[in-house]
């Protein structure tokens, strides 16, 4: 089983692709809730994963350290732990360090040693705190063998590994956490064996991405991101989506709507029909950011502090259903999972390809105007081709 832990992709593939189950749940009032519902929802979609990867992103779980970056680190060897800790002590003021609590769980075999550090960067090198953390994470992930920082945001954390998602939840004792936003992933990797670092969600700072699909544009997405200092080390195509979001939203200052128009750009035939100002904007977005278009089938749920976004590829080759009850927004691969955990869901709908579903803390969730007519159909069934 050692191979499942080996960060060196023994088959030499640059990426692994996956079919998957996704679920996301956001309370837009910011009220924290337990992981119980999201675990039940993802368990309901058990057959969409194959036990080679599961993971959770939870926001609002570390209120005792609101300002500190919570670094979750996997160690595959004791030497790696010593090397990383030496580096972290040199670069960060560490407020608290501890092993992430775990319990034995069925199907979780030979796990890595997993620690978390609540820390603030010491030297900013003229960069912002966020940029410094990104740089430090890239350093550890590219230069220190047998170690991965797989979560690096504030007041949030990623928990993931090889196993069905419900087993991963038990393993990480997620029933002990309370968060206002959870996203979950069950993985069915196809062209590499699952390994701990390759499970979803993918993270940088407080950005997380869970993904169902395969990015046929991965090769160029990756090469474009390298020009901006992002290096893909986790051998899974979803990684590029996480870095693209960080580049476009945090560094380039784009809105979530603009982000969606870059990752799942409108077709030229649609752009050509837009009013002149809008057309100029969308044409320019494609000219400048064409290399970040995510091509191929995908549904992603992107999350960061206070916000959850669902997005499918522009020709909608993978499923996504959204649901609302009161202040809570649900996103799921299958509608059944929403009904299971929320029998009295008020509305469900199937978002259009390339049209983001955005839930924001402080804003009542609801379907976009264009989805109004699809509500009834969305209730019956959510069909996807994934």
């Amino acid at each position: 089983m050692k191979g499942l832990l080996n960060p060196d992709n023994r088959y030499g593939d640059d990426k692994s692709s996956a079919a998957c189950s996704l679920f996301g749940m956001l309370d837009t009032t910011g009220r924290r809730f337990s992981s119980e519902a999201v675990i039940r929802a993802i368990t309901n979609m058990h057959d969409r994963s194959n036990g080679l990867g599961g993971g959770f992103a939870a926001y609002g779980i570390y209120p005792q350290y609101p300002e500190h970056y919570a670094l979750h680190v996997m160690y595959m060897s004791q030497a790696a732990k010593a090397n990383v800790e030496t580096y972290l002590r040199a670069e960060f003021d560490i407020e608290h360090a501890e092993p992430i609590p775990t319990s034995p769980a069925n199907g979780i075999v030979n796990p890595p040693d997993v620690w978390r550090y609540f820390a603030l960067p010491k030297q900013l090198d003229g960069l912002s705190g966020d940029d410094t953390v990104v740089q430090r994470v890239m350093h550890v992930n590219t230069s220190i063998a047998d170690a991965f920082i797989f979560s690096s945001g504030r007041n949030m954390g990623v928990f993931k590994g090889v196993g069905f998602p419900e087993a991963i939840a038990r393993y990480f004792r997620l029933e002990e956490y309370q968060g206002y936003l959870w996203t979950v992933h069950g993985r069915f990797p196809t062209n590499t064996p699952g390994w701990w670092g390759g499970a979803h969600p993918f993270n940088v700072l407080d950005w997380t991405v869970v993904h169902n699909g395969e990015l046929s544009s991965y090769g160029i997405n990756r090469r474009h991101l390298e020009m901006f200092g992002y290096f893909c080390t986790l051998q899974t195509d979803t990684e590029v989506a996480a870095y693209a979001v960080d580049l476009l939203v945090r560094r380039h200052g784009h809105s979530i709507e603009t982000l969606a128009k870059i990752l799942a750009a409108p077709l030229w035939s649609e752009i050509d029909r837009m009013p002149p100002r809008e057309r100029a904007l969308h044409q320019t977005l494609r000219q400048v950011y064409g290399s970040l278009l995510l091509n191929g089938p995908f549904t992603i749920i992107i999350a960061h502090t206070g916000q959850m976004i669902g997005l499918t590829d522009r020709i909608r080759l993978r499923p996504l259903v959204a649901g609302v009850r009161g202040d809570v927004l649900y996103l799921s691969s299958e509608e059944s999972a929403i009904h299971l955990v929320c029998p009295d869901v008020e509305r469900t709908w199937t978002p259009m390809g390339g049209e983001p579903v955005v839930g924001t803390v402080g804003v009542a969730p609801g379907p976009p105007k264009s989805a109004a007519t699809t509500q009834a159909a969305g209730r019956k069934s959510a069909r996807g081709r994934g």
Partner: protein
Amino acid sequence: MIVTSHNGHTKSYLKPRFRVDIVDERCIRCGCCVEQCSFDSMYFDTQYQRIGSTDENCVACHRCVVFCPTQAITIHQMSIEYKHNDHWRPDVIEDITRQSETGGVLITGMGSDKPWTCYWDKLCLNASQVTNPSIDPLREPMELRTFLGRKPDRLEIDPRTMEMKTTMGPQVRIETPIMFSAMSYGAVSLNVHEALARAASLAGTLYNTGEGGLHPKLFKYGPHTIVQVASGRFGVHPAYLDVGRIVEIKIGQGAKPGIGGHLPGEKVSATVATTRMIPQGTDALSPAPQHDIYSIEDLSQLIHALKEATNYTKPISVKIAAVHNSAAIASGIARAGADMIAIDGIRGSTGAAPKSIRDNVGIPIEMALASVDARLRAEGIRNQVSLVVAGGFRTSADVVKAIALGADAVYIGTAALISIGCTVCQACYTGRCAWGITTTDDKLTKRQNPEIAAERMANLLHSWSHEIKEMLGAMGINSIESLRGNRLHLRGVGLTRAEADILGVRLAGE
């Protein structure tokens, strides 16, 4: 190659390369072949009342074969009777013989016919199976639209008004990533120039004037025209720069890197002379270097002079031949302010070039493209320029592979000429092209009807574009920008590890 007894009194030692066979019982003595042959090979033998051929004059252009109404003519390569020798091959012996008879530089036409490794033939494309659905371009959108011009790293948008705050440089839209290479009026006939312009307009792409100016009759195709500024400055004037969509500075050409051009006075007709702004009948000599560009800072000055002259409304392209240090040169060109870089590989074609240069100088475009794209990315400046490559593109698959290696678009020249009859007989430099392509002879140029020729060229682009869409769809990609530089969709077969590393591709099975 026309073979004549060069000094009039010496017997040539060169043997005819082709034999024209006429089946007498099929021949109806119509004389069509005699009329069509512009190389003085076919004649009517009045003594025996039959068609005869002067085989040593035949270049195997196949004009007579195609136009014979009774299919009476076949052309055969003469069998090689030299004693077999892998080193002193027949072509080597014949070149030496020819040089001994003339004392001149061997001149030839078209691209190199030497067996350079063609890396396109050693690269396999990917396709989707199961995990990723392939896309059917007949049922789903499939986008080839491409924009040429400088792109910023980042687009700044006012989040409240959604107003763009970044000013973009001029962008030129093409609907298929294939353009027509530089072929000058003079090297090709005006009818061919017009056909290229019309075909580019029909297909939503661009053609390139080459270094021969632009006949005023073709100004109306300006939005589909790349105007070239080369070392001879032929035909460069304000209206010429104004009318083009892109201005290209030509430094070098794949068929003849490091040397200039020579249009013999015989091809400089009255209209060629007017268009080039030189006296009729004089040789049009393009110097080897541009005499105002002796270093990269001089190039930068010319780039900016042309931007000023065109009021910053047109991308400025710089075309170079693929040579050993193309990557470093390309980086310099990008930093010198160019918006596009065109690179032409060793298999690139020409109307006329010294054979020794054509067949030996430069490097394959595949290697140059891979190293230039990788270098510009390593320096973080790839998006500052559009990369256009040229040099022997034969099929839509070659184009797809070039885009996956990192090109924005390709130039095709020879393929476009083949679409209107060219058989790559390599006699362009003679000015006697029987297909009316590389000639300014009034009678021969009439053989190309611009409307029909344009339709044939546009058909070729249409056909390749469809095939590109099929290949993209198979890969699970529905827009060309997701293929550009996406080398994961390429796998090498029969490449050494070092070659694969330079191309930045994995080997098949990896």
